[in-house]
């Protein structure tokens, strides 16, 4: 057996899996999305994405995901910088610190925020004690943003940190030797070199936020239907698979267009792992 056909043999289990459980399922989404319950071709399901009822939930999701991503960048950048500059270059440590919480069930961690932010919750208890005005954010957009930032912040910190770690100290010293002050070192050297990490961070925060089902369900109290909740309901409550697939199809296309645009700025190293 020559090495080429041996290679095909080694790849075979994955090839079968890939076709069977990645490609064919996607073809089904396209098929259901473009037909009605009599199996006749129609664009109605796809067009109804732009129907105000559905489009509003997409715009709301877009807005909340956008704000969350922005907050994540602002919160994560200093952390990544601090860890980069710290002398203990134990890179596995920072990964552990931020991956570790994922070992407690994600839905429970979101649920715990209810205990914290409720009217009589822990945060208000502390605020009252400090004689400060109370917060009232349960079942609001603020609570959903809080949940998104909380859940996805690690996915901004880790790629940012990775890209900052790749910057050589000599590069920074070179810039300083050539007369750059600390601000210029940051704006001219560190920031541009961190863009690939930031962009993968953005996609890893923005897309899960945009399509979340659980966070809006738990912290929004069912008042705020985001596009993910709408799709879930079409499948599991109203059982309208054709409409659900049509909406998903537009969402998938939107995601891949976003990925295509951001791809320009990400690392060209094709095998690099994102986290």
């Amino acid at each position, binding site marked *: 057996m020559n*090495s080429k056909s041996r290679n095909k043999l080694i790849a075979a289990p994955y090839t079968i899996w890939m076709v069977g*459980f990645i490609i064919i399922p996607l073809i089904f989404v396209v098929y259901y999305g473009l037909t009605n319950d009599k199996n006749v071709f129609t664009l109605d399901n796809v067009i109804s994405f732009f129907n105000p009822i559905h489009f509003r939930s997409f715009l709301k999701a877009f807005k909340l995901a956008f704000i969350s991503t922005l907050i994540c960048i602002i919160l994560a950048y200093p952390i990544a910088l601090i860890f980069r500059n710290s002398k203990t270059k134990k890179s596995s440590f920072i990964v552990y610190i931020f991956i570790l919480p994922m070992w407690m069930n994600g839905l429970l961690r979101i649920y715990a925020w209810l205990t914290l932010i409720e009217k009589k919750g822990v945060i208000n208890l502390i605020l009252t004690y400090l004689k400060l005005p109370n917060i009232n954010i349960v079942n609001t957009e603020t609570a959903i943003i809080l949940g998104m930032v909380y859940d996805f912040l690690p996915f901004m910190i880790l790629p940012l940190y990775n890209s900052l770690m790749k910057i050589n100290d000599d590069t920074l010293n070179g810039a300083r030797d050539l007369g750059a002050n600390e601000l210029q070192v940051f704006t001219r050297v560190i920031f541009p070199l961190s863009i690939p990490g930031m962009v993968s961070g953005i996609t890893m925060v923005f897309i899960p936020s945009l399509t979340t089902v659980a966070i809006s369900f738990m912290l929004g109290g069912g008042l705020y239907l985001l596009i993910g909740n709408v799709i879930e309901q079409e499948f599991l409550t109203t059982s309208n698979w054709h409409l659900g697939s049509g909406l998903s199809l537009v969402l998938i296309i939107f995601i891949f267009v976003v990925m295509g645009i951001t791809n320009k700025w990400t690392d060209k190293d094709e095998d690099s792992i994102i986290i």
Partner: protein
Amino acid sequence: MMRKILKHSYLTLILLFTYIPIIVMVVLSFNASKSRVNFTGFSLKWYQQMFSDRNIVSALQNTILIALISSLVAVVIGTMAAVAISNMPRRTRTIYLSITNIPMLNADVATGISLMLCFITFGISLSFGTVLISHITFNIPYVILSVLPKLKGSSRYEYEAARDLGATSRQAFFKVVLPEIMPGVVSGFMLAVTMSLDDFIITHFTRGAGINTISTLVYAQVKRGLNPSLYALSSIMFVAVLVVLIITNFVANREKE
């Protein structure tokens, strides 16, 4: 000096933000009452009752079984795929990697419904097995992307050298290549277990009636209030992982010395 204080307080704040929900869960697991807000006294009753609730026991079993089996299968298929991909001509390789990226980049809702449509249309009734298949599907990419970078360097020449020295291809793989890429295989496995344990939405769409994982059980109970035994269970799981990680780190550090 000022800068240092600023740095440390910022780090502390972010870590507090990251860990405060976990602290809340652990505290509530010792709460005497079922209340989510009032701590009425210390009690171990939720830990005692944990295993008397049949729903929780079966959800725990499912969660662990699915995480372990799906990660093991994903490691085998994914490692083989990574080896094959690293030897592929450029164009085929790009196609494989692009398709591998789909489950990682696509929305979980979309992956979930696409698998559900596929199963049902082919007449496969949703069950434990369909959840397992779905988890394997989204775990394989994590394994491939962890293993692939380790294969880049010298492994190809080492493999050929071993062959020249008379090793069979099987020996060359298991004795030369595999030890080299082992760190990637292990981190791929760990990543797969983490993703599988934390998944909610794909499980939600592909599970059969009566099949629950901890995530779907929590989702189902949110509206009427969670059984605090779930806090107890999750606290135990979290502490168990913490202990395992500390021990493995400790052992690894000692071996280095």
